[in-house]
């Protein structure tokens, strides 16, 4: 045996060995098929490398083979927990390209549906995030409340999860006031007491606070470098909400506050989203109280279908209807990106038109994808359990991450 240590022994002695652990892609706490390669020193995370793409379905390519009004059905499937906010972002971009005005009634209903989608998304976030942390009952409570929103979506659009209810120019059809409005009103009446229950269960709970306080720090400067938006940005002290700063679809006419905190940690993100649900309820009440009458879609006949009741008797209406459904409409060449505030962060569709009836390029700006890139910054130096808390608090939806 030589007088010096062999190479392998020297490595073990001089360097700490780190362990590489696969978290996912099949994992109950990654909120979907997310793969994270964790480099661990004991229980401490030295590095985390997320690997995405397991749910990639080529949605951006699909848009290019569809007419503009058909694209809305694809948008539901991206952030599938908040379908109407995606619908709205897409429709706003197409309307910017077309240059059509959306009537007030449609704008107000769009706001109502977007806020219901936001609450929908936040309820699932809360239920699954609490489930990951260990508070399992929360999942059942949140899904019980969410059921009321899904029934409301069913009443207005005929579908629970993928409504595709908006269309460029307005709404696909007028809301069914007899069924839809009472369902929304009863939900708006029920949720505040439930939110108080959730607060009582979690907000001052010592285990909840121990798991979330000081965990997953993303400072304002890091949020800027990594383009983090939404509740995570506002938990870092930056007061930027697209609904307030760059209002769209009549959001400027409603009174609501935007929660901003500066703890930069998972706990403040939790509080932000809880407050956002209350503010969304405020907006919903204002819409319900002030809902204007009128058209549900623009008057522009290049975009809006003729009224159904004359289709049986008017030949030209029939041809017009057939033409729009079969051939769509052709926005003039140009580009448009209209930013909107989705529940995850800023979402928008960058649409390039070449003057034909199908888009040349539709690019989704996916907040969840961009936040996954920021995940390693938030978890370096934490424990493995903190990675779970952090993923939950950044609230990714894999449909949007991978598209």
């Amino acid at each position, binding site marked *: 045996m030589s007088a010096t240590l062999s190479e392998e022994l020297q490595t073990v002695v001089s360097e700490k060995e780190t362990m590489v652990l696969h978290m996912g892609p099949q994992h109950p706490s990654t909120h979907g098929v997310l793969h994270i390669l964790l480099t661990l020193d004991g229980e401490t995370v030295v590095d985390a490398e997320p690997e995405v793409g397991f749910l990639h379905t080529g949605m951006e390519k699909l848009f*290019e*083979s569809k007419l503009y009004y058909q694209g809305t059905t694809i948008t539901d499937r991206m952030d599938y927990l908040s379908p109407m906010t995606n619908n709205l972002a897409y429709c706003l971009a197409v309307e910017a390209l077309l240059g059509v005005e959306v009537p007030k009634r449609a704008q107000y209903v769009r706001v109502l549906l977007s806020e219901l989608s936001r609450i929908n998304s936040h309820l699932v976030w809360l239920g699954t995030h609490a489930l990951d942390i260990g508070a399992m009952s929360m999942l059942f409570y949140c899904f019980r409340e969410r059921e009321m929103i899904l029934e409301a979506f069913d009443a207005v659009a005929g579908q629970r999860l993928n409504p595709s209810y908006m269309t460029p120019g307005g709404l696909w059809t007028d809301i069914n006031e007899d069924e839809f409005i009472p369902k929304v009103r009863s939900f708006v009446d029920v949720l505040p007491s439930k939110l108080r229950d959730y607060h009582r269960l979690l907000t001052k709970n010592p285990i909840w606070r121990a798991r979330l306080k000081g965990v997953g720090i993303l400072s304002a400067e890091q949020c800027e470098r990594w383009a983090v938006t939404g509740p995570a940005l506002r938990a870092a002290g930056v007061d930027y909400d697209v609904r307030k700063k760059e209002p769209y679809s009549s959001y400027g006419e409603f009174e609501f506050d935007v929660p901003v905190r500066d703890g930069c940690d998972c706990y403040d993100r939790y509080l932000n989203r809880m407050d956002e649900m209350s503010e969304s309820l405020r907006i919903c009440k204002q819409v319900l109280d002030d809902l204007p009458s009128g058209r549900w879609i623009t008057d522009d006949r290049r975009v809006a279908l003729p009224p159904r009741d004359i289709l049986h008797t008017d030949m030209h209406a029939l041809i017009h209807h057939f033409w729009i459904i079969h051939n769509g409409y052709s926005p003039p060449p140009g580009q448009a990106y209209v930013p909107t505030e989705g529940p995850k962060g800023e979402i928008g569709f960058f649409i390039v038109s070449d003057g034909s009836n199908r888009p040349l390029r539709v690019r989704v700006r996916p907040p969840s994808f961009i936040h996954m890139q920021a995940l390693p910054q938030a978890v370096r130096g934490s424990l493995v359990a903190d990675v779970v808390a952090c993923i939950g608090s950044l609230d990714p939806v894999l449909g949007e991450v991978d598209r």
Partner: protein
Amino acid sequence: MRSTAAEQATSASESAARRLKALLGDAVQEPRVERDGVLTVAVAREAVIAVLTELRDNPDHEFRVLIDLTAVDYGHGKRTPRFDVVYSLLSRRDVARIRLAVGVDEGDEWVPTATSVYPCANWLEREVYDLMGIRFDGHPDLKRIELPEDYDGHPLRKEFPLRGGHRQVRRPEDPEPHFGHRFRAR
């Protein structure tokens, strides 16, 4: 349809265009306000890092956030240059947005990486490389992100069929699917 805040944003963008022209001259071409009210300028590949750095650091502009980085394929033979790499920047302080379009020729598909200016460009550039095949010179880890690392082809390119490259999807011995003709892209 555009609210006052958006109008303010447009005028902030237009004054940004004038200052940009004054500072950078020919590096910034064809400024136009697109249909969404956002100022869009064409930037030459050689100048893009300088322009991005200037827009980020100059206290007159403070476009400190890279909102999105993507690419557009106009199709083979449809336009020269064939591709545009599009950078969307946001100034939270001024609530202003600006878009840069860098033209990339077919056969010469590369652009310098923006990761030194905006770290979040890392994954966004990987996605453009993965789906469009445009390389980013100087990128720390340019590998595919959505598709498997051994995938062949760049699906968002116009010549890539909607149903997928058949080498990946079907084995040679699989019969030709009957519904093929119904899913033809335009």
